[in-house]
């Protein structure tokens, strides 16, 4: 079905081909009928193998025939002495090789080979490994062969170190070998594990990999594999689940807990809550920012106890992970204000990328210099530009902000196809830097206006902000705004918003500006029906219709200003 060129042929050639195919169809049909008959009669013998091999040799995807062969092998295994059966298995392996030579990408052939190797009384795993080497010489990207290799390695207990050496050899022969780099990413954690390291790998191992990747992409800057692998090296494994902040409000009585990653309650973790030393086990129904129990960063508890959040009460919250261990415990004591925000992890320490040791920092700084030199030599190479940005983000995201923005502009010129991706990444970096540098989270105002933001990232860090300014950006939806559970004033003026999905959970929202956006249909406003605290909505500069009716039906509780009229509360309309 793939890679068959349409070739124009003469009428003569077409006729000859038609005749040949007619013959093939006749043979195929006769064979098939014989096989169906035989199998139906329960005959598992050499003739079964002979008949099915005639079809499978041309068409190894007829899976039912491989199944008949498997049934025959199972049967003969019981009938034949071991030696004879072994010979039969060896013959099957030869047959399979001829099938693979013709079509090295048939699922059926490789799977049947696994079956024979598992059934064979005395399997020769070394020969199989040799076969894999051969087929990977023909096509180093044949994933069927790589998967078969992993099966052989597992069965015959080849060491991870040996396999790593195999990939090193493959990569040094030909850098462009994505399959080998991928395999390395699986082998390294087995050979050089270090659970205390953000990557889960020993640092020296990581440095070696940086060097290997660098060698590859400095030798051939167009070799994608090495750049892609390098990006992984700059990352981190999953964070251990932990609490970021705790927010307590007296009226209405609410506790909010912000986690450092999205997790599902009662699946990955639970909260244990004590008020004044007494465990609160009555009906504690935590919900997430969307009022469900699906995975989320933010968990909310209303009316936590009869004493609620009175100022002379001490509240203790523990995070209990799925293995039953109490992970961390925090106490909020005798607070006097109507609301308290306790920052467990300082905002400036929020990890958007990997924390680096001195040694790794040095390695990456050198890399950055080398990449910048390469960029001067090959300004059209997008991989260099992208890697420069990633290195800057890993090293000193705030310090390098302008340089990174400059690189993104270059990247968009060099690789315009992915402009939207790059603009979204720019938005992400800007938001990350603003969050990191926001003096402290008690400062509950957030200004992200005029930043050309195309998308919102990390909105869980905006959960406790009361005034958020996102005006004059390029947002097209309000995705992500559902985390803004404390927001009272939200300014979305001057964007391109067409959908308000996400706003329906903002119970405290009082003042919303949608001025100069792209709202064309009235039903777009439906989410606002649930914004019970909404008092003021600015809809000027949108092309909509029939607003009057809509306001009567859905927004009678708030004051609405438009170019045409001012309706709703306090105006007598």
């Amino acid at each position, binding site marked *: 079905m793939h890679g068959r060129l349409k070739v124009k042929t003469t009428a003569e050639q077409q006729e000859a081909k038609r005749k040949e195919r007619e013959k093939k169809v006749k043979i195929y049909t006769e064979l098939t009928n014989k096989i169906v008959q035989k199998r139906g009669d329960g005959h598992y013998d050499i003739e079964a193998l002979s008949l099915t091999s005639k079809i499978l040799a041309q068409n190894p995807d007829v899976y039912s025939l491989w*199944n008949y062969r498997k049934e025959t092998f199972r049967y003969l295994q019981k009938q034949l002495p071991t030696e004879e059966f072994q010979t039969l298995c060896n013959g099957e392996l030869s047959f399979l090789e001829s099938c693979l030579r013709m079509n090295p990408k048939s699922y059926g052939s490789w799977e049947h080979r696994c079956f024979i190797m598992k059934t064979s009384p005395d399997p020769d795993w070394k020969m199989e490994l040799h076969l894999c080497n051969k087929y990977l010489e023909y096509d180093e990207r044949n994933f069927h062969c790589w998967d078969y290799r992993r099966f052989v390695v597992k069965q015959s207990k080849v060491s991870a170190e040996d396999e790593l050496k195999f990939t090193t050899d493959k990569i040094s022969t030909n850098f462009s070998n994505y399959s080998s780099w991928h395999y390395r990413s699986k082998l390294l954690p087995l050979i050089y594990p270090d659970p205390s390291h953000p990557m889960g790998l020993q640092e020296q191992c990581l440095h070696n990999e940086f060097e290997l990747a660098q060698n590859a992409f400095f030798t*051939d800057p167009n070799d994608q594999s090495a750049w892609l692998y390098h990006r992984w090296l700059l990352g981190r494994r999953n964070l251990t689940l932990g609490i970021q902040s705790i927010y307590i409000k007296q009226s209405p009585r609410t506790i909010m807990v912000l986690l450092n990653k999205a997790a599902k309650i009662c699946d990955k973790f639970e909260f244990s809550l004590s008020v004044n030393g007494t465990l609160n086990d009555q009906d504690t129904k935590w919900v997430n920012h969307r009022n469900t129990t699906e995975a989320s960063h933010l968990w909310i508890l209303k009316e936590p106890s009869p004493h609620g959040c009175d100022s002379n009460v001490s509240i203790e919250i523990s995070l209990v992970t799925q293995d039953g261990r109490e992970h961390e415990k925090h106490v909020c004591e005798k607070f006097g204000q109507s609301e308290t925000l306790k920052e467990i992890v300082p905002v400036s320490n929020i990890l958007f990328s990997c924390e680096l040791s001195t040694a790794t920092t040095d390695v990456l700084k050198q890399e950055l210099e080398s990449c910048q030199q390469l960029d001067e030599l090959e300004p059209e190479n997008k991989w260099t530009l992208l890697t420069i940005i990633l290195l800057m983000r890993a090293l000193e995201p705030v310090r390098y902000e302008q340089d990174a923005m400059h690189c993104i502009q270059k990247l968009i010129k060099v690789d315009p196809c992915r402009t939207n991706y790059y603009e979204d990444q720019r938005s992400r970096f800007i938001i990350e830097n603003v969050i990191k540098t926001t003096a402290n989270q008690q400062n509950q105002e957030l200004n992200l206006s005029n930043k050309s933001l195309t998308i919102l990232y990390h909105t869980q860090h905006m959960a406790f902000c009361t005034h958020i300014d996102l005006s004059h950006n390029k947002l097209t939806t309000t995705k992500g705004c559902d985390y803004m559970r404390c927001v009272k004033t939200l300014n979305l003026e001057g964007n391109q918003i067409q959908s308000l999905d996400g706003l329906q959970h903002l119970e405290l929202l009082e003042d919303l500006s949608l001025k100069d956006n792209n709202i064309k249909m009235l039903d777009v406003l439906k989410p606002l029906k649930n914004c019970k605290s909404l008092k003021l909505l600015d809809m000027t500069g949108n092309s909509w219709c029939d607003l009057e009716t809509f306001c009567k039906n859905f927004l009678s509780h708030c004051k609405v200003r438009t170019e045409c009229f001012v309706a709703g509360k306090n105006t007598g309309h």
Partner: protein
Amino acid sequence: MAGMPIKDVIIKEDAPRSLMLEKHIEYIVSYQSKKEDYEYIMTEYLRMSGMYWGLTAMDLMNSLDRMNKQEVLEFVKECQHDCGGFGASVHHDPHLLYTLSAIQILILYNCIELIDVERAVGYVQSLQLEDGSFQGDKWGEVDTRFSFCAIACLCLLGRLEAVDIKKATDFVLSCMNFDGGFGCRPGSESHSGQIYCCLGFLSLVNGLDHVNVDMLGWFLCERQLPSGGLNGRPEKLPDVCYSWWVLASLKMLGRLHWINKDKLIKFILACQDEETGGFADRPGDMVDPFHTLFGITGLSLMGSDERIKTVNPIFCMPQHVIDKLGIHLQLL
């Protein structure tokens, strides 16, 4: 070591530029009438899927009525084995792949009651292994494609609770790779087809939060080559079927805008055959129903032509059919 040229195709000046919908309709209609044809007979081992591809394409092109409903339904019924599973055709063994295609066909025609639903559920259930993975059939091949097939079958039948979802999810997640993508089995290289299956699975079990959206979205948008076409993994040629696997994946992740739509549309249209109708894997190659469906569904996802109905990105079935079933699916 000299720099390698990028593997890609060049779209010729005279390549088709507009959608020849009528021709594609006729192509599918005539395909099913060529039952004595060599091509047709040699692909009997995937017939059930072949029918699903043709029927779905026809419905999306508003022409399902041109197909022989009675004949199709009889055929599907005949292919259900005692164990509850479906084979690709009569005299072919039961397999999850063809069980899904059979169910999709019946749902399309709103005739699911024609088969033994309980047995079909039992068949799917019986294929789940200890580690949560699914074998394709009793012979034991494990692949994340089968995890998707199993869960999709059960969702369409409204019986998701029949298997251990948590274990099934853990297995799928164990197939996640350094690039954010997914392979066939734990340790396998990322491939767009597998990514589509795993994301489809996660969408149906509300587990998309486990995905590294930015990393995977980037891997997927990097599939777009200078010709505008998409490949399945790094350094491979573009292929129209990836307009589906990659695009549907991006849709589930909420990152469809990371692909350049205009360039992709141009590529897909160039894969049409002006003479015979239908789409090929790349411009100038032979057409087939498989690539015809995915050319149409790719265009549907991008909303490029009003004449094509909306397709559901998880099931690759008409959205209006899925809407009627009330299935919960997650889209980021």
